[in-house]
């Protein structure tokens, strides 16, 4: 916990948007949520969240969980329904987010917002789960990756809650995992591993991105080879013009 506290502090400090962290004492207002929905979401998801063909999926049973995830990451609203949602600045205030989420939660019977108890969970168990389920896309040290048709976000930015939500939602092209596939306990472990991987045990100096050979090659050429060529220039002579 002592190691993790600074991470938490950093996370909070690093969160760019004003409304991305839940605040106490803000009350949701479903009516306000409904009008926010009409203004920002209905163009693709339909006036009652029923979804529109070629525009956006139905929000029935999406629940507060999905709404909270999509709005707080800035994934939604999306300019173009064909483009990949990507983390951007959140445009709503905390009050607005809560109201919007509360409204979307009234469409069907979706899951509530999770609150992962990862602080006491097992990083080792989480690492194993991550290697089995997540590393193929997000890279084993959470540096993100690619698949044909999408880029896969690194996991440095999402909060523990957003990680837990994403596992259940499966945003964009990501598979989704129910409580049967990944139990709540396992989810806590998973979140604990991602939190660990944001600031892993970095022995051996400057970590150059936890990407392995790619940045290592850059250092080889831009740093080592350049210095050694410069040394050669210092020791040896150049041709007279």
């Amino acid at each position: 916990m002592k190691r993790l506290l600074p991470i938490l502090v950093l996370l909070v400090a690093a969160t760019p948007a004003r409304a991305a962290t839940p605040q106490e004492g803000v009350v949701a207002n479903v009516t306000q949520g409904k009008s926010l929905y009409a203004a920002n979401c209905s163009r693709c998801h339909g006036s009652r969240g029923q979804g529109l063909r070629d525009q956006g999926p139905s929000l029935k049973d999406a629940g507060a969980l999905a709404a909270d995830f999509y709005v707080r990451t800035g994934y939604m609203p999306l300019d173009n329904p064909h483009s990949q949602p990507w983390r951007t600045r959140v445009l709503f205030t905390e009050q607005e987010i809560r109201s919007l989420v509360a409204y979307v939660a009234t469409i069907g019977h979706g899951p509530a917002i999770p609150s992962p108890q990862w602080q006491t969970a097992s990083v080792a168990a989480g690492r194993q789960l991550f290697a089995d389920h997540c590393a193929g896309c997000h890279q084993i040290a959470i540096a993100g990756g690619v698949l044909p048709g999408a880029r896969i976000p690194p996991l440095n930015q999402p909060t523990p809650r957003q990680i837990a939500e994403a596992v259940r939602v499966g945003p964009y092209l990501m598979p989704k995992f129910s409580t049967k596939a990944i139990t709540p306990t396992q989810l806590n472990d998973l979140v604990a591993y991602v939190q660990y991987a944001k600031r892993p045990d970095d022995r051996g100096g400057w970590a150059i991105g936890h990407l392995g050979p790619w940045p290592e090659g850059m250092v080889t050429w831009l740093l080592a080879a350049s210095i050694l060529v410069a040394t050669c220039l210092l020791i040896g002579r150049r041709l007279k013009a």
Partner: protein
Amino acid sequence: MIRRLVRFVDQRSGGAPFVRKALRYVFPDHWSFLLGEVALYCFILLVATGVYLTLFFEDSRSQTVYHGSYKPLQGETMSRAYESVLHLSLDVKAGLLMRQTHHWAANVFLAAILLHVLRVFFTGAFRKPRDLTYVIGLAMLFTAFLEGYLGYSMVDDLLSGMGLAIGYSVALSLPVIGANLGLLLWGGPFPGSPSFIPRIYIAHVLIFPLLIIALLTLHLVLVASRHHTQFRESPKTTEKQVVGIPAFPGQAPRSLGLMFAVFAVLFLLGGLVQINPIWLWGPYHVGEATNGAQPDWYLGWLIGALRLVPGFDLTVGGYTLVPNPFWGGALFPVVILFVLALWPWAERRVTGDDAFHNLLERPRDNAWRTSLGAAFLTWIFLVFMSGSADRVTVWLGLDYSAQIWAYRVLIWLVPLLVFFAVRRACRELLAWEQIRSD
């Protein structure tokens, strides 16, 4: 004192005349002639640090459950090979320094050889009587590729396991003999028999290093026996006469200084910049993979080639004759090796120039060679670049498939442009010099 020592040695070895000659062996002075030395000093450090690492490495794939000091891997099943490298990295004092320095040295070794080859190529130093020296150098380069690959493969972490899977697939893809060769080397279907890790271990620490040492010795003996090439600088530097700094006392501190510079850079990197943090990759299992897996930089051209080749196997009547990895993983490097190795003979045939060449050409002096070589290099370099298209997607959001299609076109177009641009540049430079001297 010195006199007595020299006398002692000479009376027992008769080596005084040789040593006297060696001390006054002349080194023509140009900074680019030092690049080969950089590679040599990397190799020395590789052997030194490598010997240290062997004292801790356990060449075994037998599985064990980890209960060491690194918490996130507690309770995981892993091979003893991987466990021993974890232990070396995290629990042995100075172990990580040695391992990281060794790995950086490998990366820089290959970079230095490559720079050296480029210098030799673009100055025409490979011409008779040094064509054999050049071919031996190329053999060393390709041995070093394999040596490096084996080195990071035997650790049995997630990345090395994926690399071995690809190596196995390339072996299997060789026409006709592929399956037999793959099974022979691996001792069975992937991931191979329990003796596979001991095999690549002994190849990495004994067979390939011996091969490199043998080639290196031959290379240096040939270089020394023909003397070094030189640029035409004064009336004294001619095809018949070399001018340079004697080994002792002039060159010795220069070369020693360069050696210490190589050691300094590599130890500083080994201590200050993390390389291959295997504890983060975790152990390899056949059913696991990570995104963004790349080989070390010097094999980047191969992953690029494997990714660029369109998806097809060459088949005859429902049977695969040539599986896909052959094109990028085997044919591509072999073509490059052959083009480079046969270049001296090809050039001699085309130009009809069979003379001895001790004087170097500046790149601009031979526009044809320089522009063709630059185009060829560009081709390889673009394939190399395409190997990192996935990272470009992560950073810049450029669509991966679109990049692959773009590269499939660009690797043919850009070299053509480079050829004409470089040829033009060479000619312009010469013309400019002409005007200036007039």
